[in-house]
């Protein structure tokens, strides 16, 4: 068969989610993936006796079977929930900032987290309770807006969600300034900023508050067998539902008919496949700039795409260590090591190569003791580059440059935690922006899609999602989508675009 109801470009989280949703409705679907495995960043790789997680630090939104989070519910609807074994994380993070004098562990759970803030400030618990109440209202308001399909009753909004409306335009820093909490409390509440990768002046407070609420009330999990387990669970589901996935099959052109409607795709080897509907799980820069003939791209698509700001470019050091976490003295799963607690300063210093001011580091064995052979452990350290610094690295300097950055990150981690790991490195792999660009094709090696900007944040994108699409038959979902980056967001965005595509198909049928 050379004709499908829907073709999905890219088997990343968004693409996999979209394909399952389409197939669930009995429509035919082909996923074309340029790599030889599914998942995009949701993958893993083996070096020697270690299997490294490629990207995931913690998965938020799963919750427990008794108290499921929104992503668990979504996975159940898609039919993949039973295929995945989750491990619940104990603590949220261990924050270390020598310059600020911070060194503390924060637990999950509203009450436990609030109480833990008493060690930072005598009224810590009170502030955090108040903050989480505000977050809850924001979360509830968002849920209400979703239930009303983006058309909430203004009277209900004013009555039930006044704080949501009042802080709706503000950045994280503006909102915290208005809240007036002590610096140490604000700094602690800001710790997760790097998961969204925009500094406090740009990042939408609503978005951040919603995420914080979810983390501290639902906790976080990791899949037992790395995120490759998630991707294969989706692939299995797609096969169960009769869908097709073709690997090593890069789409090089989205084809449109005389009316400008999508009519198919062309693969790298020249083969063309018909479909009236394409869901692209890739960057709009690539979709409009490369995959479509320029005359088929409406002017406003160019304007919108040029308006976006590319977000954080990834850099990760993967270490297989020939000593156990216990022998090293590492007790925690998730470390944030910050030169400063000021996200704007961190963001600024991440523009250049040479000063890794922030790292999010995972010692996987502290979540899953069986993840590597006895007497060993897996550590991976991630940072972001907030500008295109790696574009000026030449091929002959490339390998040395990446080792220099990695060595610096390792040394900083050792200093912050008082451990020696460099003597026990049995395996090392380093992913740079080039690596992410290689596997997923994102401009500049960004791993975070489009950055949350003051006027391009979560709620803005959700409200304008129909206005932001231009080519009939084409929808774009995943990490560049309306829900921004992150594992749960990219799955949800893909599923949302599939839902909209199903609606398009239904309209066509009428």
């Amino acid at each position, binding site marked *: 068969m050379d004709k499908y109801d829907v073709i999905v470009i890219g088997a990343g989280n968004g693409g996999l989610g979209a394909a399952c949703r389409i197939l669930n409705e009995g429509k035919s679907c082909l996923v074309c993936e340029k790599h030889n495995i599914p998942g995009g960043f949701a993958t893993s790789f083996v070096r020697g006796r270690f299997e490294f997680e490629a990207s995931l630090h913690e998965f938020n939104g799963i919750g427990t079977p008794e108290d499921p989070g929104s992503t668990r519910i979504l996975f159940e609807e898609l039919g993949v929930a039973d295929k995945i074994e989750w491990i619940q994380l104990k603590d949220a993070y261990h924050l270390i900032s020598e310059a600020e004098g911070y060194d503390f562990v924060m637990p999950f759970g509203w009450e436990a987290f609030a109480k833990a803030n008493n060690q930072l400030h005598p009224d810590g618990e009170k502030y955090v309770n108040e903050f989480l109440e505000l977050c809850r209202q924001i979360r509830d308001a968002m849920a209400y807006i979703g239930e009303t399909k983006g058309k909430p009753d203004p009277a209900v909004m004013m009555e039930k969600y006044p704080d949501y409306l009042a802080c709706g335009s503000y950045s994280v820093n503006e909102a915290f300034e208005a809240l007036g909490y002590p610096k140490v409390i604000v700094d602690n509440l800001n710790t997760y900023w790097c998961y969204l990768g925009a500094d406090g002046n740009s990042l939408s407070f609503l978005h951040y508050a919603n995420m914080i609420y979810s983390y501290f009330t639902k906790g976080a999990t990791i899949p037992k067998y790395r995120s490759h387990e998630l991707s294969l669970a989706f692939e299995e589901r797609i096969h169960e539902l009769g869908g097709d996935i*073709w690997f090593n099959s890069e789409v090089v052109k989205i084809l449109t008919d005389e009316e400008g409607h999508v009519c198919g795709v062309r693969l790298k080897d020249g083969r063309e496949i018909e479909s009236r509907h394409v869901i692209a799980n890739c960057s709009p820069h690539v979709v409009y700039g490369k995959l479509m003939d320029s005359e088929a791209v409406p002017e406003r698509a160019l304007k919108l795409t*040029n*308006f976006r700001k590319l977000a954080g470019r990834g850099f990760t050091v993967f270490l297989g260590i020939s000593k156990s976490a216990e022998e090293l003295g590492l007790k925690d799963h998730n470390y944030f090591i910050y030169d400063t607690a000021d996200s704007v300063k961190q963001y600024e210093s991440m523009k250049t190569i040479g000063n890794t001011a922030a790292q999010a580091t995972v010692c996987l064995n502290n979540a899953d003791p069986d993840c590597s052979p006895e007497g060993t452990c897996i550590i991976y350290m991630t940072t972001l580059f907030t500008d295109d610094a790696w574009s000026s690295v030449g091929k002959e300097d490339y390998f040395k440059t990446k080792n220099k950055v990695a060595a610096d990150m390792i040394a900083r981690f050792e200093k912050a935690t008082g451990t020696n790991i460099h003597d026990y490195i049995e395996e090392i792999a380093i992913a740079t922006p080039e690596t992410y660009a290689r596997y997923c094709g994102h401009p500049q090696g960004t791993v975070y899609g489009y950055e949350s900007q003051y006027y391009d944040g979560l709620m803005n994108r959700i409200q304008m999602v129909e206005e932001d699409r231009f080519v009939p038959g084409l929808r774009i979902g995943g990490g560049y989508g309306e829900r921004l980056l992150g594992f749960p967001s990219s799955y949800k965005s893909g599923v949302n675009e599939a839902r909209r595509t199903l609606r398009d198909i239904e309209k066509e049928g009428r």
Partner: protein
Amino acid sequence: MAFKRSNVPGEDIKLAMEMTAKRRQLIDETPAAPLVYEYGVNRLAKALHPGFVKVAIAEKTPCSADCVKIGLRPAAGGGEPAGGVEFPYFRAGQFITLSCRAGDSFLSRPYSIISSPKEALGGMLEIMVQRKGIFSTFLINEASEGTELWMGEPSGDFCHDSIRDRNHILAIAGGSGVTPFLSMMKAIREGSEEFRLTLVYGARTRAHIPFDPEDFRVEGVDMVVVLSEEEAEGYRHGFITADLLKEYIDADTSVFMCGPDAMYRFVQGELKDLGFDPTKIRQERNSVGDRRVSEIKLFRLTVHIRDSVYELDAANNETLITAMERAGIPAVVRCRNGSCGFCHSRVVNGEYFIDSKDDFRRAADKKFNYIHPCSTYPESDMEIDIPIMNP
């Protein structure tokens, strides 16, 4: 609590209500300029990892009793952007794969690079081919100057890493296994690598040495050649024993080995006797070959590539990749030793065997029944779904 930032009544909500209009206005004001989707990062990623590149044999030079050095040049019509322009930059110690149709078969084999990274920038990439096996015999006997092949990009992790490895590499090699170390020694000579290397090379006779030791009398490189079947001045005689090795091990030494499995077993034992830290030993993995079985059985193998289906016989003593190659199916493969995952494939049904020492699959691959056909033997009729080879 009531959230309030502005002292002007209603101002906070008013600002929130204006967000959409403001965003719309900002988009209106943005130029509809052509989109830039490729940057230096993307170009470097492509240059380092071009996938398959078309190359042609430029020259063949016998360099020992059983090894031939083959020089490759980029051929017209190769992959983008390297094709016809230059070879991808690589790390000393890496290998490439060569693929082509030979008779009814479609064959693909990994070969270590002799050239240093900078040498290859000059437009010629040299590999070492040992006279054994069907493809190497084809390259040595049948392929000629101008024969075109698909080259898979430089790959592999058998390289010195300044963070992981110590500053002195004790390089132990036998036969054509010296190849990655030739590349490393050249890299040290040209200054693109900065570690020290001592090569301990085992060969049968002087006639079996595929390089000129005189080429590497440079700072940072030491060399000991051990002949097993000949005594000659300037050469050691016998085997690579603990006594010999301990002369070259200092506190700053990591061991790299490349050669036949029998050499690995022997040297591992010797290093163990010396109390050498096993986590500081790295060995290049050899291809997974045929296995011994009590009775050779033929099974039916069904192979899906996209929407094409192939039916063929597969013997239980041969890997699935061998069976597919013989049947002329263009099956993707890179390392042939189970470790790189390039041939990652889905098992639709059927039983199979993978030796645990060759099993580098991810944990989830085992859970969801995926295999690397280069290290998998059939144990029943099988149906598999493999990725297309797409140069």
